[in-house]
């Protein structure tokens, strides 16, 4: 199995531990990652798409051509990147006028969008391409943890640009957590946004922190050992966001946040250092002690 690995911004430039985890986990699973040399920001829906949709589509088209040149499907650990690339890929495949416009610009750089690949979030690769049962065989260290699964928004919605999974009561990520031996616990407003997206984090950090606090409170009340998310940006928001919540409200939650790929790595028996688990602002020691 081979995939083009789209890095984005948050992972390589703020949470490189997620990138290390991805490279080590895929190695253990026998998946080969090909780097998309020269890729840029996806760009995200909250900023560039909110400001000028044509620029958003043109840059996304350029990123997609890099994966096409590698002749494999693209995968990512960030739901924002996933949302942009997945949606742009569908628009460019289906809308001839949009594709011609994008290609007119790309031709100047010897590139062309052909529509030959698909974009898959890494959890889709695991769930759809590998499958729960096969994944079970890889588990070396079953995890005795109560996990609060945070799906986030852009992995699931808008459903017309996604894989048709329910956006109100999805199950696949809970299944991916439970196959590792952990328990996915129910908690209030599980499907609510982390608060970071839409450009809100950059302009109204107090509003973002207020949303994050509500989720943290709900996870705490449900007795979660940690939050597990499939998105690099949600990961950032729940990790560094806890410091912002503390500043704004004077409340300390200290709930460890793991990206799903890090949780998977632990279950595969990989060392925490190889999973970048010491790069979080909120220490993950309470989790490691439970293993």
């Amino acid at each position, binding site marked *: 199995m081979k995939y083009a690995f789209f890095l984005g911004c948050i992972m390589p430039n703020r949470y490189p531990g997620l990138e290390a985890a991805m490279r080590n986990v895929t190695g253990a699973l026998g998946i080969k990652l090909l780097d998309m040399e020269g890729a840029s920001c996806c760009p995200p829906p*909250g900023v560039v798409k909110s400001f000028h949709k044509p620029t958003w589509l043109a840059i996304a088209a350029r990123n997609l051509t890099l994966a096409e040149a590698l002749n494999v499907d693209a995968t990512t650990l960030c739901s924002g990147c996933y949302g942009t690339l997945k949606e742009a890929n569908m628009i460019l495949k289906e809308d001839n006028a949009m594709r011609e416009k994008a290609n007119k610009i790309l031709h100047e750089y010897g590139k062309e969008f052909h529509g030959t690949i698909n974009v898959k979030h890494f959890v889709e690769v695991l769930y759809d391409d590998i499958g729960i049962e096969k994944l079970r065989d890889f588990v070396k260290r079953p995890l005795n943890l109560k996990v609060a699964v945070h799906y986030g928004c852009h992995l699931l919605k808008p*459903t017309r640009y996604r894989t048709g999974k329910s956006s109100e009561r999805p199950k696949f990520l809970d299944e991916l957590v439970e196959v590792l031996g952990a328990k996915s616990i129910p908690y209030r407003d599980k499907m609510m946004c982390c608060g970071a997206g839409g450009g809100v984090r950059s302009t109204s950090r107090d*509003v973002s922190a207020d949303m994050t606090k509500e989720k943290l409170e709900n996870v705490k009340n449900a007795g979660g050992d940690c939050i597990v998310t499939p998105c690099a940006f949600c990961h950032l928001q729940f990790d560094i966001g806890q410091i912002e919540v503390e500043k704004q409200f004077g409340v300390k939650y200290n709930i460890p946040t793991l990206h799903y790929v890090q949780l998977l790595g632990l279950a595969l028996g990989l060392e925490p250092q190889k999973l970048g688990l010491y*790069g979080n602002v909120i220490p993950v020691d309470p989790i490691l002690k439970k293993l």
Partner: protein
Amino acid sequence: MAKPQRNIIRLDELDMDFAEAVAKAGGEKINLCIQCGTCTASCPSGRRTAFRTRQLIRRAMLGFRDEVLSDKDLWLCTTCFTCLERCPRGVDPTDVILALRNMAVDAGYMLDQHKRVSGYFVKYGHAVPINEETRKRRVGLGLSEIPPTTHKHKKALDEVQGIVKKMGFDKLIGFKWEEGGK
């Protein structure tokens, strides 16, 4: 005779073509809205701020162009798409909001922080560029110090910047090339 106390909206004083313009800008189905309020009820941002999706759409439909485009609340949507999934009329409110945001930026109502983030994107090809601390941590993790992106490849950054110029995005955000960005 006592005068009735009420606010009267004169339709001819509003921008009657605004809803049509929003539709063209990507909010195609704005006119399907029947003001049921499912969007507002579903909105995690509206739960804690004055942001009201239903009201925003109503004002846009009526033609309150400048009020809508200059309203900072327009930027409180996290694009969680809950309203888009739940809208019983298929208005796709998030698409309406994104269209309004594009129009707001075009009309010069861009927030300073958004100009800054966009500036990073233009300058580095990354809305969130790398810093010294992350470089060190990358090495400690066994990764390349610089990720294999526009950060590593000058030619790739030139391409991204070329596209950005071609699209007029640099002008739109007031990016100053001669100053190397703000």
